[in-house]
């Protein structure tokens, strides 16, 4: 049995199909053939394909609508703008987050195009000139594969990137840093400040689309590169080539990609960023120029072309003079320095004036104005400056206060507070007033016992707490007492070595205790004998006889009770003439 036999209608349609009848009927009824119909059917069911199809039509439809005047562009435009504005206002970050990865490469490309164009101009302008230096550069260009212009520009820079900070944008916290030399600065504070400055600028100029990208700070510039989550700040000096900006951008982009999770979920833990030692290292750069001085690139090129090497020479002198004047101003502002006269002779600068020996030496200051020490001669006479900082320096130089003392200075008065030993305080009371600039001295000090004194006191206490007691009618030391005796001798010897005060010496009083009960006189005699015997033992053990004094003490006089027939000790310091 087959299915065909079961359903005659099916059988019929199959037959018609195979002979093309059905197709013919469909075409007559709908105007479409089968193939077209299945295509339409498919299109309607597949949402994506349908949307794609419509989207091709929509613009056309839209422009037709506008043309016919049925839709007015002027009414749509504000609507779209409003929506966009609203969305940006609600969450500006989302939009910039989306745009950042797309825009940055484009911007970068545009910038490097600019540089290329500039290099081209430089090329054509410079190739006409000639000098030995340029010849060298030209040779360098042949061997290095760089264009001549690139090399000229690279020789015009002298710059240094001193420090690079990676800062978490929202919190202003320092994530990582790299330094050109390893002098640690308050990087945490600097980065927080930078972020505060950035907040301030962005808040104050909200209307402008200006993004803070550089801050000038005297000799330094801070280049700031901002991403959605983090900021890269580079402290630079000199003429930094523009492609350094690209490096910052690329580094920052890379960090956004590599650390996107950590940046999003930052809770103050910076270990991940610190672990990556190479993170910022390539942003630390410097480039030295064969000449001594740095000049702005533009100015350099201009002068090379217009004035040639003579102009260049004049320029260099002018810069030097400018630096020198700046230097003199700030040197004159240094505490303890008065500049009276400066002049130049035979290419050498002279500085006359007064200088307190305690004021800062000019060497470092010269360096920060790009002046070579050997170009500047100082003819400074010494004087005592009365500037508070110098007076304070002078005082601490002279008085050498221990770490526990704080010196303060205010209108002619030196305040000394803290703890110090007696001798220092005594000495200081005499010397402090003689320091130039100090009229009155006010003390808020307490005495401190020195370590030595402390130790001595402990030893004396130990000796005075030692007691030897003897049996009735016997004078010998038990084994345990012998040990205690040895200790006593050792402590006593070390006390004798200890010269606490030049004008007094220690005396060991050997107290021998007895009682008044019974025959007081006999008791006293026995006690005296015991003391002498004990002193003999001590002499045998090596103590000098002259420092020991026997003394009999009646128990009745004692506050605390000691065993009868016992010996104890007392250390006294006496002046030798009282002996």
């Amino acid at each position, binding site marked *: 049995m087959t299915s065909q036999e079961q359903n005659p209608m099916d059988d019929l349609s199959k037959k018609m199909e195979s002979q093309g009848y059905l197709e013919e009927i469909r075409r007559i009824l709908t105007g479409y053939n089968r193939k077209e119909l299945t295509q339409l059917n498919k299109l309607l069911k597949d949402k994506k394909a349908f949307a794609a199809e419509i989207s091709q039509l929509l613009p056309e439809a839209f422009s037709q609508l506008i043309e016919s005047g049925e839709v007015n562009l002027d009414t749509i435009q504000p609507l779209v703008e409003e929506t966009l504005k609203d969305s940006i206002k609600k969450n500006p970050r989302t939009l910039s987050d989306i745009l950042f990865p797309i825009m940055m490469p484009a911007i970068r490309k545009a910038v490097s195009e600019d540089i290329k164009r500039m290099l081209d101009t430089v090329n054509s302008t410079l190739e006409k000139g000639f000098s030995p230096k340029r010849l060298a550069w030209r040779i360098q260009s042949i061997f290095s594969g760089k264009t001549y212009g690139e090399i000229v520009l690279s020789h015009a820079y002298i710059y240094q990137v001193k420090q690079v900070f990676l800062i*978490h944008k929202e*919190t*202003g916290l320092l994530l990582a840093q790299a330094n050109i030399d390893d002098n640690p600065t308050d990087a*945490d504070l600097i980065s927080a400040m930078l972020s*505060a400055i950035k*907040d301030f600028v962005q808040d104050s100029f909200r209307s402008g689309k200006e993004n803070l990208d550089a801050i000038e700070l005297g000799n330094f510039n801070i280049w700031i590169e901002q991403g959605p989550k983090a900021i890269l700040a580079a402290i630079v000096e000199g003429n930094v080539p523009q492609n350094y900006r690209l490096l910052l951008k690329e580094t920052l982009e890379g960090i956004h990609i590599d650390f996107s999770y950590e940046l999003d979920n930052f809770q*103050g833990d*910076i270990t991940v960023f610190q672990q990556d030692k190479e993170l910022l290292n390539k942003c630390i750069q410097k480039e030295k120029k064969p000449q001594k001085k740095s000049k702005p690139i533009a100015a350099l090129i201009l002068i090379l072309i217009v004035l040639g090497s003579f102009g260049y020479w004049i320029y260099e002198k002018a810069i030097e003079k400018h630096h020198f004047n700046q230097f003199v101003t700030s040197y004159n502002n240094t505490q303890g320095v008065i500049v009276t006269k400066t002049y130049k002779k035979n290419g050498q600068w002279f500085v006359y004036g007064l200088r307190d020996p305690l004021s800062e030496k000019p060497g470092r200051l010269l360096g920060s104005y790009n002046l070579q020490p050997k170009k500047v001669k100082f003819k400074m006479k010494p004087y005592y400056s009365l500037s508070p900082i110098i007076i304070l320096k002078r005082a601490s130089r002279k008085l050498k206060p221990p770490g526990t003392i704080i010196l303060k200075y205010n209108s002619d008065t030196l305040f000394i507070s803290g703890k110090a030993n007696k001798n220092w305080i005594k000495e200081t009371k005499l010397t402090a007033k003689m320091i130039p600039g100090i009229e009155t001295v006010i003390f808020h000090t307490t005495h401190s016992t020195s370590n030595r004194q402390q130790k001595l006191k402990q030893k004396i206490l130990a000796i005075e707490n030692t007691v030897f007691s003897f049996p009735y009618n016997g004078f010998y030391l038990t084994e345990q007492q012998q040990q205690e005796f040895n200790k006593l001798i050792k402590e006593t010897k070390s006390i004798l070595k200890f010269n606490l005060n030049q004008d007094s010496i220690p005396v060991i009083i050997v107290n021998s205790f007895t009682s008044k009960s019974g025959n007081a006189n006999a008791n006293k005699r026995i006690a005296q004998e015991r003391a002498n015997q004990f002193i003999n033992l001590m002499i045998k053990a090596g103590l000098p006889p002259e420092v020991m004094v026997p003394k009999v003490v009646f128990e009745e006089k004692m506050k605390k009770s000691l065993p009868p027939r016992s010996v104890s000790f007392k250390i006294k310091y006496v002046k030798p003439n009282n002996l």
Partner: protein
Amino acid sequence: MIKKKITMLGAFAVGKTSLVQRFVRSIFSEKYHTTIGVKIDQKIVQIDHQDVNLLLWDIHGEDEFQKVKPAYVMGSAGFFIVMDGTRKNTMNIGLDLLAMAQKVAGNVPFIILINKSDLKNDWEITDSDINNLTNKGYSVILTSAKDNIEVEKAFLTLAKKLLN
């Protein structure tokens, strides 16, 4: 090391700078130098055997001339609202700033400091005012930057809250 940003908020002359200086440098000055913009200090404290670097953003006080910029508060892990016990209106300004800070920094820990407790006799903020604050669930600490009362405790308590 863990780092945390903490912001000092409050009306002018309530003692924000004094509190920070007392905590960071153990100093106090009677002289009043109003803060312009932000002054940032740092101090490393130990919380549960762990070093934490607190970056303290001491922001200028809010008055009719300068409003506090919300951007300064952004990213704070926690903040202080400082009031001056002797000036009642500093409480209202403080509460306004609290609302602003919570909007900007989100639901982060904060402590209300009522400062100048050494002048308790001249206080305009009363015990019932303070009760109202604590009843809202706020932590309140009465401090004196001048006499060093509860200053250290205030900072350490907040730091501890930040780490939980």
